[in-house]
Protein backbone atom coordinates (compact mmCIF):
# COMPACT_ATOMS: atom_id res chain seq x y z
CA UNK A 1 0.00 0.00 0.00
CA UNK A 2 1.19 3.48 -0.73
CA UNK A 3 -1.03 6.19 0.69
CA UNK A 4 1.62 8.87 0.65
CA UNK A 5 0.71 12.25 -0.82
CA UNK A 6 3.11 15.12 -1.34
CA UNK A 7 1.81 17.65 1.13
CA UNK A 8 -1.13 19.11 3.01
CA UNK A 9 -2.55 20.90 -0.05
CA UNK A 10 -2.84 17.62 -1.91
CA UNK A 11 -4.16 15.76 1.12
CA UNK A 12 -7.09 18.14 1.62
CA UNK A 13 -7.77 19.06 -2.01
CA UNK A 14 -11.22 17.38 -2.15
CA UNK A 15 -12.54 18.93 1.08
CA UNK A 16 -15.50 21.04 -0.05
CA UNK A 17 -17.58 23.79 1.54
CA UNK A 18 -19.96 22.62 4.29
CA UNK A 19 -17.93 19.48 5.05
CA UNK A 20 -17.87 17.97 8.55
CA UNK A 21 -14.30 17.57 9.80
CA UNK A 22 -12.79 15.92 12.84
CA UNK A 23 -9.54 17.55 13.93
CA UNK A 24 -7.27 15.81 16.45
CA UNK A 25 -5.51 17.49 19.33
CA UNK A 26 -6.01 18.65 22.90
CA UNK A 27 -5.48 22.37 23.25
CA UNK A 28 -2.59 23.04 20.85
CA UNK A 29 -1.01 19.66 21.60
CA UNK A 30 -1.08 17.15 18.75
CA UNK A 31 -3.02 19.33 16.29
CA UNK A 32 -2.69 18.88 12.50
CA UNK A 33 -0.86 22.18 11.91
CA UNK A 34 -0.08 21.61 8.24
CA UNK A 35 -3.64 20.70 7.26
CA UNK A 36 -5.09 23.67 9.14
CA UNK A 37 -2.74 25.99 7.24
CA UNK A 38 -3.79 24.31 3.97
CA UNK A 39 -7.50 24.64 4.80
CA UNK A 40 -7.02 28.36 5.44
CA UNK A 41 -5.19 28.69 2.11
CA UNK A 42 -7.89 26.73 0.25
CA UNK A 43 -10.57 28.91 1.81
CA UNK A 44 -13.32 26.28 2.16
CA UNK A 45 -16.26 27.67 4.11
CA UNK A 46 -19.23 26.55 6.16
CA UNK A 47 -17.22 23.85 7.93
CA UNK A 48 -18.48 21.89 10.93
CA UNK A 49 -15.47 21.07 13.09
CA UNK A 50 -15.48 18.33 15.71
CA UNK A 51 -12.49 19.04 17.92
CA UNK A 52 -11.99 19.04 21.69
CA UNK A 53 -10.92 22.71 21.60
CA UNK A 54 -10.99 25.59 19.13
CA UNK A 55 -7.38 26.72 19.25
CA UNK A 56 -6.27 30.21 20.24
CA UNK A 57 -6.75 33.46 18.30
CA UNK A 58 -3.69 33.08 16.10
CA UNK A 59 -3.03 29.34 16.08
CA UNK A 60 -4.77 26.05 15.49
CA UNK A 61 -8.46 26.16 14.61
CA UNK A 62 -8.37 29.82 15.67
CA UNK A 63 -6.79 30.53 12.26
CA UNK A 64 -9.91 29.14 10.53
CA UNK A 65 -12.12 31.25 12.77
CA UNK A 66 -10.23 34.40 11.78
CA UNK A 67 -11.09 33.67 8.15
CA UNK A 68 -14.75 32.81 9.04
CA UNK A 69 -14.50 29.32 7.58
CA UNK A 70 -16.20 27.58 10.48
CA UNK A 71 -19.99 27.42 10.69
CA UNK A 72 -20.19 25.15 13.72
CA UNK A 73 -17.83 23.91 16.44
CA UNK A 74 -18.53 20.70 18.36
CA UNK A 75 -16.18 20.79 21.36
CA UNK A 76 -15.91 20.18 25.09
CA UNK A 77 -14.03 23.35 25.98
CA UNK A 78 -13.51 26.43 23.85
CA UNK A 79 -11.09 28.25 26.12
CA UNK A 80 -9.52 31.63 25.72
CA UNK A 81 -10.21 32.76 22.18
CA UNK A 82 -11.46 36.33 21.70
CA UNK A 83 -12.48 35.94 18.05
CA UNK A 84 -14.39 32.78 18.91
CA UNK A 85 -16.28 34.64 21.63
CA UNK A 86 -17.08 37.53 19.31
CA UNK A 87 -18.47 35.26 16.58
CA UNK A 88 -20.45 33.23 19.10
CA UNK A 89 -22.06 36.29 20.70
CA UNK A 90 -22.84 37.84 17.29
CA UNK A 91 -24.49 34.59 16.13
CA UNK A 92 -22.04 34.00 13.26
CA UNK A 93 -20.82 30.78 14.84
CA UNK A 94 -22.81 27.88 16.19
CA UNK A 95 -21.39 25.88 19.09
CA UNK A 96 -22.36 22.55 20.55
CA UNK A 97 -20.64 21.82 23.85
CA UNK A 98 -20.46 18.20 24.89
CA UNK A 99 -18.62 16.40 27.69
CA UNK A 100 -15.05 15.45 26.82
CA UNK A 101 -15.47 11.74 27.47
CA UNK A 102 -18.67 11.72 25.42
CA UNK A 103 -16.83 13.44 22.57
CA UNK A 104 -14.02 10.86 22.65
CA UNK A 105 -16.39 7.93 22.91
CA UNK A 106 -18.68 9.14 20.11
CA UNK A 107 -15.58 9.18 17.88
CA UNK A 108 -14.58 5.76 19.14
CA UNK A 109 -18.05 4.32 18.49
CA UNK A 110 -17.84 5.50 14.90
CA UNK A 111 -14.48 3.79 14.40
CA UNK A 112 -15.77 0.60 16.03
CA UNK A 113 -18.86 0.51 13.83
CA UNK A 114 -21.30 1.08 16.69
CA UNK A 115 -24.21 3.50 16.11
CA UNK A 116 -24.45 4.81 19.66
CA UNK A 117 -23.14 4.59 23.21
CA UNK A 118 -24.59 4.94 26.69
CA UNK A 119 -22.82 7.24 29.12
CA UNK A 120 -23.72 8.65 32.54
CA UNK A 121 -22.05 11.99 31.73
CA UNK A 122 -24.65 14.75 31.65
CA UNK A 123 -27.54 12.83 33.26
CA UNK A 124 -29.74 15.34 35.10
CA UNK A 125 -28.13 18.33 33.33
CA UNK A 126 -29.04 20.38 30.27
CA UNK A 127 -26.83 18.04 28.20
CA UNK A 128 -29.56 15.40 28.67
CA UNK A 129 -32.34 17.50 27.13
CA UNK A 130 -34.03 15.62 24.28
CA UNK A 131 -31.91 12.49 24.72
CA UNK A 132 -33.00 8.95 25.47
CA UNK A 133 -32.28 7.98 29.08
CA UNK A 134 -31.94 4.33 29.89
CA UNK A 135 -31.42 2.63 33.22
CA UNK A 136 -28.88 -0.17 33.51
CA UNK A 137 -28.30 -1.85 36.89
CA UNK A 138 -29.95 1.00 38.77
CA UNK A 139 -28.04 3.85 37.11
CA UNK A 140 -29.22 6.24 34.39
CA UNK A 141 -27.32 6.67 31.13
CA UNK A 142 -27.76 8.95 28.12
CA UNK A 143 -27.78 7.52 24.63
CA UNK A 144 -25.31 9.43 22.47
CA UNK A 145 -24.87 8.80 18.75
CA UNK A 146 -21.63 7.97 16.99
CA UNK A 147 -20.28 10.89 14.99
CA UNK A 148 -20.55 10.98 11.23
CA UNK A 149 -17.63 12.93 9.76
CA UNK A 150 -16.65 13.38 6.13
CA UNK A 151 -12.98 13.75 6.96
CA UNK A 152 -10.82 13.08 10.00
CA UNK A 153 -7.57 15.03 10.09
CA UNK A 154 -5.01 13.79 12.58
CA UNK A 155 -1.41 14.40 13.57
CA UNK A 156 0.98 11.60 14.53
CA UNK A 157 4.65 11.42 15.41
CA UNK A 158 5.66 8.63 13.02
CA UNK A 159 3.93 6.93 10.16
CA UNK A 160 4.64 4.70 7.16
CA UNK A 161 3.23 4.44 3.61
CA UNK A 162 0.60 1.93 4.78
CA UNK A 163 -0.80 4.63 7.07
CA UNK A 164 0.32 2.96 10.30
CA UNK A 165 0.67 5.62 12.99
CA UNK A 166 2.51 6.11 16.27
CA UNK A 167 1.77 9.11 18.47
CA UNK A 168 4.01 10.73 21.06
CA UNK A 169 3.21 11.39 24.73
CA UNK A 170 0.02 13.38 25.40
CA UNK A 171 -0.09 14.48 21.74
CA UNK A 172 -1.96 11.21 21.24
CA UNK A 173 -5.22 12.42 22.89
CA UNK A 174 -8.13 12.41 20.39
CA UNK A 175 -6.05 11.51 17.33
CA UNK A 176 -6.39 7.69 17.44
CA UNK A 177 -10.16 7.59 17.76
CA UNK A 178 -10.69 10.35 15.21
CA UNK A 179 -8.37 8.51 12.80
CA UNK A 180 -10.73 5.53 13.09
CA UNK A 181 -13.84 7.64 12.57
CA UNK A 182 -13.41 9.57 9.32
CA UNK A 183 -14.96 8.46 6.03
CA UNK A 184 -11.64 9.75 4.70
CA UNK A 185 -8.78 9.98 7.20
CA UNK A 186 -5.80 12.22 6.54
CA UNK A 187 -2.72 11.84 8.70
CA UNK A 188 0.18 14.27 8.89
CA UNK A 189 3.32 12.99 10.56
CA UNK A 190 6.62 14.40 11.77
CA UNK A 191 8.54 11.40 10.47
CA UNK A 192 7.50 9.30 7.48
CA UNK A 193 9.48 6.05 7.45
CA UNK A 194 9.59 3.11 5.00
CA UNK A 195 7.23 0.18 5.54
CA UNK A 196 8.84 -2.24 7.97
CA UNK A 197 10.62 0.40 10.01
CA UNK A 198 7.84 0.69 12.58
CA UNK A 199 7.56 -2.18 15.05
CA UNK A 200 4.11 -3.74 14.42
CA UNK A 201 3.76 -4.25 18.19
CA UNK A 202 4.01 -0.50 18.76
CA UNK A 203 1.46 0.76 16.19
CA UNK A 204 -1.31 2.87 17.77
CA UNK A 205 -3.45 3.28 14.62
CA UNK A 206 -3.37 0.43 12.06
CA UNK A 207 -3.06 1.72 8.51
CA UNK A 208 -6.46 0.38 7.43
CA UNK A 209 -8.04 3.45 9.02
CA UNK A 210 -5.82 5.93 7.19
CA UNK A 211 -6.40 6.95 3.57
CA UNK A 212 -3.73 9.59 3.00
CA UNK A 213 -0.48 10.32 4.78
CA UNK A 214 2.21 12.94 4.32
CA UNK A 215 5.27 14.26 6.07
CA UNK A 216 4.44 17.60 7.65
CA UNK A 217 6.84 20.54 7.62
CA UNK A 218 7.75 23.47 9.85
CA UNK A 219 6.02 22.26 13.00
CA UNK A 220 5.72 25.07 15.51
CA UNK A 221 4.24 22.91 18.28
CA UNK A 222 3.25 25.95 20.26
CA UNK A 223 2.97 25.63 24.04
CA UNK A 224 -0.25 27.12 25.45
CA UNK A 225 0.74 27.32 29.13
CA UNK A 226 4.47 27.26 29.72
CA UNK A 227 4.92 26.21 33.35
CA UNK A 228 8.32 25.48 34.91
CA UNK A 229 9.78 24.87 38.36
CA UNK A 230 12.83 26.49 39.86
CA UNK A 231 16.09 24.59 39.52
Amino acid sequence: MNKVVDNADEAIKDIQDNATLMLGGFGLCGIPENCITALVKKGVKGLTCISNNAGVDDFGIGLMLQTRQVKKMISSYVGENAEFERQLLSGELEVELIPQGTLATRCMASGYGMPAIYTPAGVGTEVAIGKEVRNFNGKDYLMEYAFDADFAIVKAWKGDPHGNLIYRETARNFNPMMAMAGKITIAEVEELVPAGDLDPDQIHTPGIYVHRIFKGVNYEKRIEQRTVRKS
Partner: protein
Amino acid sequence: MLDKTGIAKRIAKEVKRGYYVNLGIGIPTLVANYIPQGFDVVLQSENGLLGMGPFPFDGEEDADLINAGKQTITTLPGSSFFDSAMSFGMIRSCKVDLTILGAMEVSDNGDIANWKIPGKMVKGMGGAMDLVASAKNIIVAMQHVNKAGESKLLPKCSLPLTGVGCVKKIVTELAVLDVTQQGFKLLERAPGISVEQIKNATLGRLIIEGDIPEMHLD
Protein backbone atom coordinates in the same frame (compact mmCIF):
# COMPACT_ATOMS: atom_id res chain seq x y z
CA MET B 1 -9.90 30.68 58.05
CA LEU B 2 -7.96 28.74 55.43
CA ASP B 3 -6.33 30.21 52.36
CA LYS B 4 -6.13 28.24 49.09
CA THR B 5 -2.97 26.49 50.27
CA GLY B 6 -4.71 25.49 53.49
CA ILE B 7 -7.65 24.00 51.61
CA ALA B 8 -5.21 22.06 49.41
CA LYS B 9 -3.27 20.83 52.48
CA ARG B 10 -6.44 19.63 54.18
CA ILE B 11 -7.65 17.81 51.06
CA ALA B 12 -4.24 16.14 50.68
CA LYS B 13 -5.01 14.31 53.96
CA GLU B 14 -7.88 12.55 52.17
CA VAL B 15 -5.50 11.02 49.65
CA LYS B 16 -4.65 7.47 50.70
CA ARG B 17 -1.73 5.22 49.81
CA GLY B 18 -2.15 3.46 46.47
CA TYR B 19 -4.80 5.86 45.17
CA TYR B 20 -5.22 6.88 41.55
CA VAL B 21 -6.31 10.53 41.69
CA ASN B 22 -7.65 13.04 39.17
CA LEU B 23 -7.05 16.66 40.11
CA GLY B 24 -9.08 19.46 38.57
CA ILE B 25 -7.85 22.93 37.68
CA GLY B 26 -7.28 25.58 40.39
CA ILE B 27 -7.02 24.67 44.09
CA PRO B 28 -7.18 20.91 43.31
CA THR B 29 -3.94 21.19 41.31
CA LEU B 30 -2.21 22.49 44.46
CA VAL B 31 -3.13 19.29 46.35
CA ALA B 32 -0.32 17.47 44.51
CA ASN B 33 2.20 19.60 46.41
CA TYR B 34 1.06 18.23 49.79
CA ILE B 35 0.79 14.50 49.12
CA PRO B 36 3.56 12.97 51.27
CA GLN B 37 6.70 11.82 49.46
CA GLY B 38 6.79 8.08 48.75
CA PHE B 39 3.02 7.76 49.25
CA ASP B 40 2.60 5.68 46.10
CA VAL B 41 -0.15 7.88 44.64
CA VAL B 42 -0.59 8.09 40.85
CA LEU B 43 -2.06 11.24 39.31
CA GLN B 44 -4.27 10.86 36.25
CA SER B 45 -4.50 13.66 33.70
CA GLU B 46 -7.56 13.11 31.54
CA ASN B 47 -5.85 14.20 28.32
CA GLY B 48 -4.05 10.87 28.47
CA LEU B 49 -1.49 10.31 31.21
CA LEU B 50 -1.09 8.28 34.39
CA GLY B 51 1.90 9.20 36.51
CA MET B 52 1.96 12.96 36.12
CA GLY B 53 5.05 14.60 37.63
CA PRO B 54 5.90 18.20 38.55
CA PHE B 55 6.46 21.07 36.11
CA PRO B 56 9.67 20.70 34.04
CA PHE B 57 12.80 22.70 34.73
CA ASP B 58 13.26 25.80 32.59
CA GLY B 59 14.42 24.74 29.13
CA GLU B 60 13.12 21.17 29.49
CA GLU B 61 9.51 21.89 28.46
CA ASP B 62 8.08 19.45 25.91
CA ALA B 63 5.16 20.65 23.75
CA ASP B 64 3.90 17.07 23.48
CA LEU B 65 3.67 16.66 27.25
CA ILE B 66 0.92 18.68 28.92
CA ASN B 67 -1.76 18.22 31.55
CA ALA B 68 -5.51 18.81 31.28
CA GLY B 69 -4.91 22.49 32.08
CA LYS B 70 -2.61 22.66 29.02
CA GLN B 71 0.41 23.25 31.30
CA THR B 72 3.79 21.73 30.54
CA ILE B 73 4.52 18.86 32.92
CA THR B 74 6.79 15.84 33.35
CA THR B 75 6.24 12.12 33.86
CA LEU B 76 7.30 9.99 36.81
CA PRO B 77 8.79 6.46 36.64
CA GLY B 78 5.99 4.00 35.89
CA SER B 79 3.89 6.46 33.91
CA SER B 80 1.81 5.59 30.84
CA PHE B 81 0.16 7.42 27.95
CA PHE B 82 -3.18 6.57 26.36
CA ASP B 83 -5.85 8.08 24.17
CA SER B 84 -8.85 10.15 25.27
CA ALA B 85 -11.38 7.32 24.94
CA MET B 86 -9.36 5.06 27.20
CA SER B 87 -8.79 7.93 29.60
CA PHE B 88 -12.52 8.40 30.09
CA GLY B 89 -12.95 4.63 30.01
CA MET B 90 -10.87 4.32 33.18
CA ILE B 91 -12.84 7.18 34.71
CA ARG B 92 -16.24 5.73 33.73
CA SER B 93 -15.35 2.25 34.96
CA CYS B 94 -14.37 3.64 38.38
CA LYS B 95 -10.67 2.79 38.23
CA VAL B 96 -9.82 6.30 39.42
CA ASP B 97 -10.20 6.27 43.22
CA LEU B 98 -10.61 9.97 43.92
CA THR B 99 -11.59 13.05 41.96
CA ILE B 100 -10.92 16.50 43.39
CA LEU B 101 -12.48 19.48 41.66
CA GLY B 102 -13.69 23.02 42.17
CA ALA B 103 -17.30 24.20 42.21
CA MET B 104 -19.41 27.32 41.96
CA GLU B 105 -22.28 25.74 43.95
CA VAL B 106 -23.02 22.47 45.73
CA SER B 107 -26.45 21.47 47.01
CA ASP B 108 -27.15 19.52 50.21
CA ASN B 109 -27.98 16.39 48.21
CA GLY B 110 -24.60 16.48 46.44
CA ASP B 111 -25.51 18.16 43.15
CA ILE B 112 -22.69 20.26 41.71
CA ALA B 113 -22.63 23.28 39.39
CA ASN B 114 -19.24 24.31 38.07
CA TRP B 115 -19.36 24.93 34.34
CA LYS B 116 -21.77 27.62 33.27
CA ILE B 117 -23.08 30.99 34.37
CA PRO B 118 -26.09 32.08 32.30
CA GLY B 119 -25.43 35.38 30.54
CA LYS B 120 -21.67 34.93 30.63
CA MET B 121 -19.47 33.44 27.92
CA VAL B 122 -19.64 29.67 28.33
CA LYS B 123 -16.33 27.92 27.77
CA GLY B 124 -17.55 24.38 28.17
CA MET B 125 -17.63 21.54 30.65
CA GLY B 126 -14.43 19.83 29.47
CA GLY B 127 -14.21 16.52 31.31
CA ALA B 128 -16.07 17.64 34.44
CA MET B 129 -19.42 16.03 33.59
CA ASP B 130 -17.77 12.69 32.82
CA LEU B 131 -15.75 12.82 36.04
CA VAL B 132 -18.64 13.67 38.37
CA ALA B 133 -21.00 11.16 36.73
CA SER B 134 -18.69 8.23 37.38
CA ALA B 135 -16.19 8.88 40.16
CA LYS B 136 -16.43 6.73 43.27
CA ASN B 137 -15.34 9.55 45.51
CA ILE B 138 -15.60 13.24 44.75
CA ILE B 139 -14.18 15.94 46.98
CA VAL B 140 -14.97 19.55 46.16
CA ALA B 141 -12.52 22.35 46.97
CA MET B 142 -14.40 25.65 47.04
CA GLN B 143 -15.03 28.93 48.81
CA HIS B 144 -17.90 28.68 51.29
CA VAL B 145 -19.37 32.01 50.17
CA ASN B 146 -19.09 34.03 46.95
CA LYS B 147 -17.64 37.51 46.61
CA ALA B 148 -21.01 39.02 47.58
CA GLY B 149 -20.97 36.99 50.80
CA GLU B 150 -23.69 34.59 49.65
CA SER B 151 -23.52 30.91 50.54
CA LYS B 152 -22.39 28.47 47.85
CA LEU B 153 -23.62 25.52 49.93
CA LEU B 154 -27.29 25.55 49.02
CA PRO B 155 -30.57 23.66 49.37
CA LYS B 156 -30.66 23.59 45.55
CA CYS B 157 -28.13 24.81 42.98
CA SER B 158 -29.26 27.90 41.10
CA LEU B 159 -26.72 27.48 38.26
CA PRO B 160 -26.92 24.84 35.51
CA LEU B 161 -25.79 21.49 36.93
CA THR B 162 -22.65 19.56 36.09
CA GLY B 163 -23.84 16.41 37.87
CA VAL B 164 -26.46 15.20 40.33
CA GLY B 165 -26.07 13.62 43.76
CA CYS B 166 -22.37 12.98 43.34
CA VAL B 167 -20.33 15.13 45.76
CA LYS B 168 -19.15 13.20 48.84
CA LYS B 169 -17.10 15.78 50.73
CA ILE B 170 -16.46 19.52 50.65
CA VAL B 171 -13.46 21.44 51.97
CA THR B 172 -13.85 25.21 52.18
CA GLU B 173 -11.96 28.05 53.85
CA LEU B 174 -14.29 27.54 56.85
CA ALA B 175 -15.01 23.85 57.21
CA VAL B 176 -14.89 20.21 56.18
CA LEU B 177 -18.31 18.72 55.49
CA ASP B 178 -19.63 15.36 54.32
CA VAL B 179 -22.62 15.27 52.02
CA THR B 180 -25.16 12.84 53.53
CA GLN B 181 -28.76 11.95 52.76
CA GLN B 182 -29.79 14.37 55.51
CA GLY B 183 -27.66 17.24 54.19
CA PHE B 184 -24.22 18.76 54.86
CA LYS B 185 -22.70 17.14 57.93
CA LEU B 186 -20.16 19.39 59.63
CA LEU B 187 -16.99 17.44 60.45
CA GLU B 188 -14.30 20.03 61.19
CA ARG B 189 -13.90 23.77 61.65
CA ALA B 190 -11.04 25.75 60.10
CA PRO B 191 -8.64 27.27 62.66
CA GLY B 192 -10.29 30.21 64.43
CA ILE B 193 -13.73 29.62 62.89
CA SER B 194 -16.79 29.03 65.09
CA VAL B 195 -19.71 26.71 64.43
CA GLU B 196 -21.88 29.83 64.37
CA GLN B 197 -19.86 31.33 61.50
CA ILE B 198 -20.24 28.11 59.50
CA LYS B 199 -23.99 28.05 60.20
CA ASN B 200 -24.32 31.62 58.96
CA ALA B 201 -22.40 30.82 55.77
CA THR B 202 -24.38 27.67 54.91
CA LEU B 203 -27.80 27.95 53.30
CA GLY B 204 -28.40 24.23 52.73
CA ARG B 205 -29.39 21.78 55.48
CA LEU B 206 -26.55 21.59 58.00
CA ILE B 207 -26.13 18.78 60.51
CA ILE B 208 -24.16 19.57 63.64
CA GLU B 209 -23.68 16.70 66.05
CA GLY B 210 -21.69 17.08 69.27
CA ASP B 211 -18.47 19.06 69.51
CA ILE B 212 -16.98 19.96 66.16
CA PRO B 213 -13.18 19.73 66.29
CA GLU B 214 -10.81 22.22 64.73
CA MET B 215 -8.96 20.72 61.78
CA HIS B 216 -5.29 19.71 61.89
CA LEU B 217 -3.24 20.59 58.86
CA ASP B 218 0.13 19.02 59.67
